[in-house]
């Protein structure tokens, strides 16, 4: 590895100042499960590594029935998995957090890092998009909010400007009769990067027989994670039956634009988008029906 400087600011202000000062030559470090590998491989060669784990705002996780979930960008995946609130209100996000690598990786990897790494295959990203999560970004010019689906711009690239830092995710309180699900397909049962990942949230009507709202998001089938707008719209207001679900699955396949690589052919990935869209809708419906009436 090339020589680096390491700094661990304790406040958001200091972190922003450091990142702004070094610009392109600095890279924030959170769990390090992507960054350290990239440094070693020479894929990224920043002179300065700014450890953001000691900034309190980035480590907080809180939920209330007014504001919803605030999830600090540096909270490790394992804490997301263990959070009773996440388990209760956002089971899809919980399962996505639990799929990021092994226990060892989950101890370090954060949901924020998962997004900022800019990989289209990040497991938590489709789950966040499905939940309509927003990113609170702070920088030298102040703060701004960015929808998760707008955060990634290309493989390895995001909307973050020099000096900007992802502080937290804000996820609205789930509606009544709603729930979410995340599934990914991998060849093994653990330790693989998603060949395809699909996150889905649904809100049902009070009789549980129509979709009121839905959000479907796709991972690993394009240069960035994708909000499958047409597929999501296709569910809204429709009766819950296999024809409706099939139509949404088909639209999701159409919106995907996968490539051939060592993890799967484009053809196989498109096929999987259909399979996982159907399956996540099914799971989300079931959960919404069972969900505690709120």
């Amino acid at each position: 590895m090339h020589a680096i400087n390491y700094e661990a600011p304790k406040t958001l202000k200091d972190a922003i100042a450091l990142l702004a000062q070094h610009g392109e030559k600095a890279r924030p470090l959170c769990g390090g499960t992507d960054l350290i590998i990239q440094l070693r491989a020479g894929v990224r060669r920043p002179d300065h590594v700014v450890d953001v784990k000691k900034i309190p705002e980035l480590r907080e996780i809180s939920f209330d029935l007014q504001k919803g979930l605030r999830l600090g960008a540096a909270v490790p995946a394992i804490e997301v998995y263990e959070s009773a609130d996440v388990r209760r209100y956002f089971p899809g996000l919980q399962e996505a957090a639990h799929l990021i690598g092994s226990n060892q990786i989950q101890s370090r990897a954060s949901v924020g890092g998962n997004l900022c790494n800019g990989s289209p295959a990040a497991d938590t990203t489709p789950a966040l998009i499905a939940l309509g999560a927003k990113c609170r970004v702070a920088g030298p010019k102040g703060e701004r909010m960015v929808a998760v689906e707008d955060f990634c711009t290309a493989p390895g690239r995001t909307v973050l400007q020099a000096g900007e830092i992802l502080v937290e995710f804000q996820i609205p309180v789930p509606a009544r009769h709603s729930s979410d699900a995340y599934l990914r397909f991998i060849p093994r049962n653990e330790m693989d990067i998603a060949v395809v990942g699909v996150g889905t949230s649904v809100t049902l009507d009070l009789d549980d027989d129509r979709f009121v709202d839905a959000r479907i998001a796709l991972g690993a089938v394009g240069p960035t994670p994708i909000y499958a707008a047409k597929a999501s719209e296709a569910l809204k207001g429709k009766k819950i039956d296999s024809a409706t679900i099939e139509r949404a699955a088909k639209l999701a396949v159409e919106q995907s634009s996968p490539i051939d690589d060592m993890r799967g052919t484009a053809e196989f990935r498109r096929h999987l988008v259909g399979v996982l869209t159907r399956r996540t809708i099914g799971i989300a419906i079931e959960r919404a029906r069972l969900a505690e009436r709120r």
Partner: protein
Amino acid sequence: MAAGTTEGSRFRVIGTRPVRHDGVEKVTGAARYGADYAFPGMLYGRVLRSPHAHAIIKSINVEKARKLEGVRAVVTSADLPELPDRIEQGGELPINLHHLSCNILARGKVLYDGHAVAAVAATSPHIAEEALRLIEVDYEVLPPAMTVEDAMAPNAPILLPSLRNKEDGPDKQTNVAAHVQFKRGDIKDGFSKADYVIERTFKTAMVHQGYIEPHNAVGIYNADGHATIYCSTQGSFVVRSLSAAVLGIPEGKLRVVPAEIGGGFGGKTTIYLEPLSVLLSQKTGHPVKLTMNRAEVLRATGPTSGGTIRCKMGATKDGKLVAAEVWMAYEAGGFPGSPVPMGAMCIIAPYDIPNMVIDAYDVVVNRPKTAAYRAPGATNAAFASETIIDELAEKCGIDPCDFRIKNGAHEGTPQTAGPPYKRIGMIETVEAIKNSPHYKSKLTGKNRGRGVATGFWFNIGFQSSAMVNIHNDGTASVVTGSVDIGGSRASMAIITAEVLGLDVKDVRPLIADTDAIGYTDVTGGSRTTVATGLAVYEAAQDAVRQLKERAAKLWEKKPEEVEFNNGMLSAKANGVKPMSIKDIVPRLGRTGGPITGRATVNARAVGPAFATTCVDVEVDPDTGKVSILRATVAQDAGKAVHPSYVEGQMQGGTVQGLGWALNEEYFYDSKGVLRNTGLLDYRMPTCLDLPMIETVIVEVPAPGHPIGSRGVGEVSIVPPPAAVANAIARAVGVRMTELPMSPGRVVKAILSKDGAAVASAAAD
């Protein structure tokens, strides 16, 4: 767990399960593996590797790298002697030292992505790595030949300009390094008698041994011209002879100290970093440690061949195999030497087939030079033949176990290469599966299926040395040159304790370096317990013989009047009080000095080994993902010396076979660059992908071996890919002919067949 052995009480210690002698060091982190060695003033080395699959090296400029602060030396192939481009005679197996040297550091040409080009020593591994970035290599990139088909095509790019084969003659450049043929009976006549003939073409992917410990070596060059290498290897003597040859120094000036080894599976039977560590130490005057990272391991070491196998077999209606015809070509990697001759000798080895012809081709391709991998060549071969056997059984309407029993090889059946088998346990392993709780259980559920396959592997003998020392307190130590890769120290102690009548805890097993013990071949080829075990057995017998002589002296008897049983010396005469070893030890000084038993052997290749495996799978028809529900392996161990470690070999081999079956493969891009250079995308099974692996140890003693042991290290890897393929066929009605049977391939096969058949083929 294992079925009990049928053999009764011939042995006292052999067949028991003591805690391994090196166990505590290995569970406390104290055991020293190659990368754990450190010496004062030690430098760190790194290797620059080719980014191209096939290129001419026009020039290498190392000046900038040399100038980096902390860099102490940079070497290229110009620093190594040029060796003759011919097969060396005298060894057991052919070796071309020019090829070996060119694989250590490329000379003139690079032949695969990852081919070593230069090496650096520096004061820290990070500086060495940064120095690699400063080495300027001017390549002329050539088109690569990545598959056997590419390389055998008429206008294929030629990898080795001097390579010739016998058939094409001295004038024709070629990528086909060798052709081997085996023939018996009349193939036309054979097929004319067949009622059913199945012919398919199979493809298998290049796979890696996947040992968790990357290669390592610490070289220390002494000003007097002697050098020492500390490294993790399966064969310290092989490292010594090959490294000496590559360095151009006499073997006697090199000492190799085998460290603990973190897995090998055949992949650590050759050399990569070892001579470089000495060369860099010689240039710098410091100890130099070289280690590979995982990407280097995958790009540049050991894989075993993928390739193409066309297999045609015929059987009569009543289920008798009558003919087999095989064409097979294996990827050798950048230099000749794939295991295709062994694959050819294994492919139909479990069966008695009167008419056969097998043609096998060793083909160089722009991939890493292959190294041995657990039953080299046999697993791909069995994937082909055992799939066809399964289909023939299905056509004949015969249970797959019964079909194998009916056609199974037995004592007297000619082997593929001609000589008749001695006593073997092929049929016994199939019967063990047939009678297993697993095979007798009913498999229910949709998209589930059960598959069976049998595998064969040889047992190599080769040379081993052993010493048994009797100590002052009546305990013993046993010293060998066989590196312990999976618990063999315990086996050596067990054999010694058995012969000397000692408690196994009173025997300390040691592994000596190349100057401290006589020549010993690699830990590989399923030979350690069989051949080194034989040397240990004889060395212990030698100690017993000496003990009897000493007792005879003390008792004023003839040695033949002294008996030795269960550790007690006795004579039939009146008034002679039996003595234990402990009793006689104080008297050794006056009767001739300490006792060391010694033996060296060149063991004949004794009983070959068979394994039969049964696998239940469930296929997700939407995604093509195959889950292993249950697996049982029955293997002929001859006589299990330490049954726990025999089971361990059976389970480990089975799981490697399952990984090969389902997900492991090398992905090269169109330019011949390896894409999956890490363990994220080179997908070996995790424990979450597996059930418990049930084992049945079959014991058909190997004739001619005093214990009856057969090698157990390899054969269990052979059946799983075919067993899984056969299970998938029963689960979803598709015959998979390409490895790995990854989800994409399986779902494609399912979707491309009649959709209706999917449901109907499912198990009830």
